């Protein structure tokens, strides 16, 4: 297993005081907490720093960890010393999610996961339900509209042959219900961490996210789509073909429709008890390249035009 340099993870010196550790942890935690952070590796980084802080903030654990010496490098292959009596028992305390900490931690401080149960040998008499596990799945807006089955690979704690809780890779095929919206959770009963002593397994709570889409944005069940129209389609109020999740739809533009105006297509959003609407955001675009003939026509429009579209814009200081 790999050695973990807890001081390096928190970016502090080996001589750091309790206050310095706390400051370093809090600052990093704000930056990398998976519920807040946009960093790609936030979850892994946060787990590491939580583990590091868990050890270093506790004087007993810190002393035991320091005994390993300062010659170890992060990532170096680590074998625990034969005698681990002084201080290492301090690990069996506190309650935390199964599989949360590294193998390195578990080896040094023992599996304190089910404190008061496993750790002190009362395993058989201890019955507890498994913990819920949270995971995310990214789907397309089309999947949400039609419903789909998507494959999901995740790390789920499982009890191995030696009775230890270890993370295992599991692949699930999950049905995405029609009309799911971004941020909603799907609850999969009994797909979380296993229970102990015959207790039931926890649930898997799957958060649905929508992958960015080239055409659509979703807000709740409403769908927004920007659709380019030509100046003459806008001016003359023509019918234009617009994309919806259910396929192409003819939309009659109001005569003289302005850019950025939203036109509602009732009930064309995501399905549900009250289906969402689709909003078509008109974007006036000029086709290019401009032919000589088109240029002449534009020039004629220019010559005939008497309206200053920018008359209301005020610029200060000039």
């Amino acid at each position: 297993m790999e050695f973990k340099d807890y001081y390096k993870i928190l970016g502090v010196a080996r001589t750091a005081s309790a206050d310095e550790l706390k400051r370093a942890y809090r600052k990093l935690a704000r930056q990398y907490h998976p519920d807040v952070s946009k960093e790609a590796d936030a979850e892994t980084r946060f787990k590491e720093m939580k583990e590091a802080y868990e050890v270093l903030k506790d004087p007993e654990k810190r002393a035991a960890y320091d005994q390993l010496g300062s010659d170890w490098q992060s990532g170096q292959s680590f074998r625990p010393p034969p005698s681990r009596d002084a201080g290492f028992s301090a690990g069996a305390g506190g309650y935390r999610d199964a599989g949360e900490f590294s193998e390195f931690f578990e080896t040094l401080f023992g599996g304190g996961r089910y404190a008061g149960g496993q750790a002190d040998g009362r395993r058989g008499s201890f019955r507890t339900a498994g913990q819920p596990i949270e995971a995310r799945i990214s789907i397309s807006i089309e999947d949400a509209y039609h419903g789909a089955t998507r494959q999901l690979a995740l790390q789920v704690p499982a009890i191995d042959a030696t009775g230890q809780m270890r993370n295992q890779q599991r692949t699930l095929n999950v049905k995405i219900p029609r009309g799911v919206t971004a941020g909603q959770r799907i609850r999969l009963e009994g797909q979380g961490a296993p229970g102990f002593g015959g207790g039931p397994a926890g649930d898997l709570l799957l958060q649905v996210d929508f992958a960015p889409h080239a055409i659509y944005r979703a807000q709740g069940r409403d769908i927004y789509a920007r659709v380019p129209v030509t100046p003459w389609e806008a001016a003359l109020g023509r019918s234009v073909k617009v994309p919806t999740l259910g396929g192409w739809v003819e939309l009659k533009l109001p005569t003289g429709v302005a850019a950025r105006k939203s036109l509602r297509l009732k009930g064309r959003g995501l399905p549900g008890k009250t289906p969402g609407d689709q909003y078509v955001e008109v974007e006036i675009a000029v086709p290019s390249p401009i032919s000589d003939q088109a240029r002449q026509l534009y020039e004629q429009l220019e010559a005939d035009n008497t309206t200053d579209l920018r008359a209301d814009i005020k610029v200060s200081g000039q």
Partner: protein
Amino acid sequence: MNTQRGLEGVLLDEELTFSFIQFCELCDMSPAIVIEMVQEGVMEPLGAGPDDWAFQGLELARARRAVRLMQDLELNWAGTALVLDLLEELERVSHQVPGKRP
């Protein structure tokens, strides 16, 4: 590695509500913590007291997130509620930012 076919879950949307006891079990939280969160304004179930409380499916995620943030960032409940409100606002706003052009 083991693969299972077409698992069907329950969608926790605004139409699904849970009683206080169901909610505690689903969140894997003690009733005391849930009561504390309601008293501190972190959670706002419908109904007057624990016996009548109805929690929306969506609130399950909020509750679990609240406890994680409070513990991991060593916040108090008022700070936790503020962070949650700001995060939810940020998520709402980010949906309104236009994506790539069609």
